[in-house]
């Protein structure tokens, strides 16, 4: 499922045949949640051919002779789109040698690119895939600069090809963390950010071979990496939590109008929701924060997402980095629905909540079928064949994927965790040591 160039993908199955194991398959009589914000429908079918969804809905005609999976009593959905993960960048968070999330001592920052570090064999990818996650964006973490570097879009298929889009966005962190990294204050982080963008802009306009200004602070590599950002070709993901920090982010557009901004965090977003909505800047956030864990999130509330959505902001549930596991997306979305039953709280409808972990993060990542992207995070004709069959309501704690297809390829359920479960399902050590039980 290699996706280096959008062009390649656009040529489709003819130019770039999918792996031989891609199946033509129909799932029938299931409860269908398309992921596009529509309500689930019962008795639906989904047809996947040549790695793509060709039909999804009630009363659709199945192609003759196609292999079918009975979805009776089950739910069928698109694969989950996990926004802002560090999947593939570490095996054990606390084991530094296995952890490529941040480059604290590198002289390079904005030019860092996660792609060569991505490890498709990471257990976290396998475990997430078993949890229904089929696509993700991967971001570097802040190292010693407010610029973390360039993230990638991946698929979680059990094969060596992992990258869908390289250098899909640049990540910059403001707020308390950015202030510390920039020299000790928000004042400094604003100057560092604007200066970097100006240097990038200058470099873009500099004739080949000409020298840069003598007071340039960025390495050439970093300034060059920010070129696509100032031109609006590469989205700039900006982490900011406090209402005032969010306003400062939105104000960037006055000097750099081409910037394609995405707000990350925005824990106090509800306090400035109309302004965010008016700017058209989408948000990727974690939904469950309700504690003043730092001074920049004194206004944290689980109603943040609901209030922003009501104000017209496009919001994805994400930030599945560190120990916030991507497979917890369904639980977090479910909790947004729970809020609709709490007086005074603002939550999301089921359909909105499910879209917040499927189509919306895909759209924000540029893979929603618009802007020349692919159609991910939805079950609709032409979408990638990422399909999950669940044993119940996917947002409910008791439910889990029964089967997962990525680009129409049935995925294995054989992670380290799954194998441990099988080995220790009984504790009989009478005949042979457990080490022979595999």
């Amino acid at each position, binding site marked *: 499922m290699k996706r280096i160039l959008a062009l390649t993908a656009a040529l489709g199955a003819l130019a770039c045949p999918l792996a031989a194991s891609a199946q033509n398959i129909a799932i029938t009589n299931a409860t269908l949640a398309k992921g596009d914000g529509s309500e689930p429908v019962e008795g639906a079918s989904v047809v996947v051919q040549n790695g793509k969804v060709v039909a999804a809905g009630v009363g659709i005609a199945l192609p003759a002779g196609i292999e079918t999976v009975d979805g009776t009593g089950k739910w069928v959905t698109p694969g989950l789109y996990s926004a802002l993960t*560090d999947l593939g960048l570490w*095996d*054990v*968070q*606390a*084991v530094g040698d296995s952890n490529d*999330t941040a480059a604290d001592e590198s002289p390079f920052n904005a030019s860092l690119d996660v792609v060569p570090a991505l490890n498709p064999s990471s257990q*976290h990818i396998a475990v997430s895939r078993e949890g229904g996650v089929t696509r993700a964006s991967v971001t570097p*973490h*802040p190292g010693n600069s407010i610029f973390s570097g360039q993230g990638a879009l991946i698929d979680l298929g059990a094969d060596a090809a992992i990258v869908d889009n390289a250098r899909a966005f640049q990540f910059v962190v403001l*707020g*308390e*963390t*950015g202030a510390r990294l920039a020299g000790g204050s928000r004042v400094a982080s604003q100057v560092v950010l604007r200066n970097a963008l100006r240097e990038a802009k200058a470099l873009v306009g500099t004739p080949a071979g000409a020298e840069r200004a003598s007071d340039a602070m960025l390495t050439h590599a970093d300034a060059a990496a920010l070129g696509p950002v100032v031109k609006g070709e590469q989205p700039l993901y900006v*982490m900011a939590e406090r209402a005032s920090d969010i306003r400062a982010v939105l104000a960037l557009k006055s000097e750099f109008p081409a910037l394609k901004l995405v707000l990350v*965090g925005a824990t*106090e977003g509800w306090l400035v929701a109309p302004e965010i909505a008016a700017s058209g800047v989408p948000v990727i956030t*974690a939904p*469950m*924060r*309700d*504690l*003043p*864990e*730092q*001074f920049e999130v*004194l*206004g*944290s*509330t*689980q*109603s943040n997402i609901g209030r922003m959505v009501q104000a017209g902001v496009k919001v994805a549930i994400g*930030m599945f*980095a*560190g*120990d*916030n*596991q991507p497979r917890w997306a369904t*639980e977090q979305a*479910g*909790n947004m*629905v*729970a809020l609709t*039953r*709490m*007086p*005074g709280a603002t939550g999301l409808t089921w359909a909105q909540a499910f879209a917040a972990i499927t189509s919306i993060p895909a759209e924000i990542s540029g893979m929603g079928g618009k802007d020349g992207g692919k159609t991910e995070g939805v079950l609709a004709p032409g979408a990638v064949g990422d399909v999950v069959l669940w*044993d119940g309501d996917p*947002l*409910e*704690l*008791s*439910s*889990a994927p029964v089967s997962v297809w990525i680009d129409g390829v049935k995925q294995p359920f054989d992670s380290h*965790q799954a194998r*441990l*479960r099988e080995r*220790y*399902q009984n*504790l009989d050590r009478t005949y042979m040591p457990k080490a022979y039980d595999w």
Partner: protein
Amino acid sequence: MRGKPRFGRLASVVALGLALATAPAAHAKKKDGDEAVSFDKDPYPSTYKAYPGRPTALVGATVYDGRGKRIDNGTVLFSGGKVVAVGGADLAIPADYDRIDGTGKFVTPGVVDAHSHLGDYASPGVDASSDGNEATSPTTPDVWAEHSVWPQDPGFSRALTNGGVTSLLILPGSANLMGGRSVMLKNVPAITVQQMKFPGAPYSLKMACGENPKRVYGSRGMKPSTRMGNFAVNRQTWIDAKAYMEGDHSERDLGNETLEGVLKGEILVQNHCYRAEEMALVLDMAREAGYKVTTFHHAVESYKVADMLREADVCSAVWADWYGFKMEAYDGIPENAALIANAGACVVIHSDDQNGIQRLNQAAAKAQAAGRRMGIDIPDAQVISWFTYNAAKASGVADKTGSLEEGKMADVVLWNGDPLSVYSRPEKVWVDGAMLFDADNPKLRPVSDFELGQPGEGDVK
């Protein structure tokens, strides 16, 4: 703390027993048999008093008693801070009781967290409020968690209102082999720690094995820097404590007083320990030193030795599915709790987290579901005990709370739906019969001093 790195830079950007309490002065004997030293074993006594409540009858709800029983269309009566009776629809309701209709809703005992650092690692999590690890010596059995608790931590109210948590065991952190004494709290807003202290709860000694102590001290070039170093320091400390216990107690030694309490069985042991082989070694060490481990915390590998833990009568306090954040969590599996329960051993769902404590019920539900998928079907009523009765047992207060039984504390949660569903939240919470949260009454939500005048004050959160 589980001793892992903070939630990742992205996200950061993401008691003494009743007998002792009523006998404040302990008398140790000199070797010659004379009464020598006497001191107060409870110098910071609980001043907790139950808040006023009204005699209440919860009717029509599905009742889980916390000990494995489910009553459909049940009735729960409480008055004077105590559970009066639990029964079916035919249970007679005294005339002066308020009637609350729980039709379509659920009632459980108050939720108990057997592993919390609220107050010791408060929000906001700034250095000035980081009071959970006395990480200055590998063994600090002399420190008491209660001396660090900041009652204004907004985390207490979130645990109450979102999680239905009515009591919680505050443990000192896991940087040390012996981290100090716990304090059991009732989850009531208070000005002083003593006003929260759970009356008659035993103290526990927090111990930690594995990576944390060896990392913290090894990185300073001191002992322990290895797992064998961990055991060496622990064993010598127990040997010294035994010598102290047999001595004349002519000089007070706060650390040894704690360890003596453990050796006498007055103080419980809460041992942070992830891996199977280390739990086995700790049980041997306990046998060697002459104490009992009450609970292994963070026991992600209990499923490998669940039979051994059943035989040793040790609880496993676990998360549902935390995974891979540190090396000793690499073999964590979501089926852990179900496998432990299936082997007949004691399961507790704990949080160790200011967010996780708000959803212990959800964690239990996830763990139950993982078991069901591998063919282990544990009834809902038993799963409820993982975060109520079993957690109270692991904390040493199961005779007082953790279940809905006549005479026990009226710590009660009315849920607006099945507590094992993601869509449900506490609707009303009572602590000792006092209603301290009501989702339908905006004024019945605690706002800590810290939150006054801040954005979102009094928000439903």
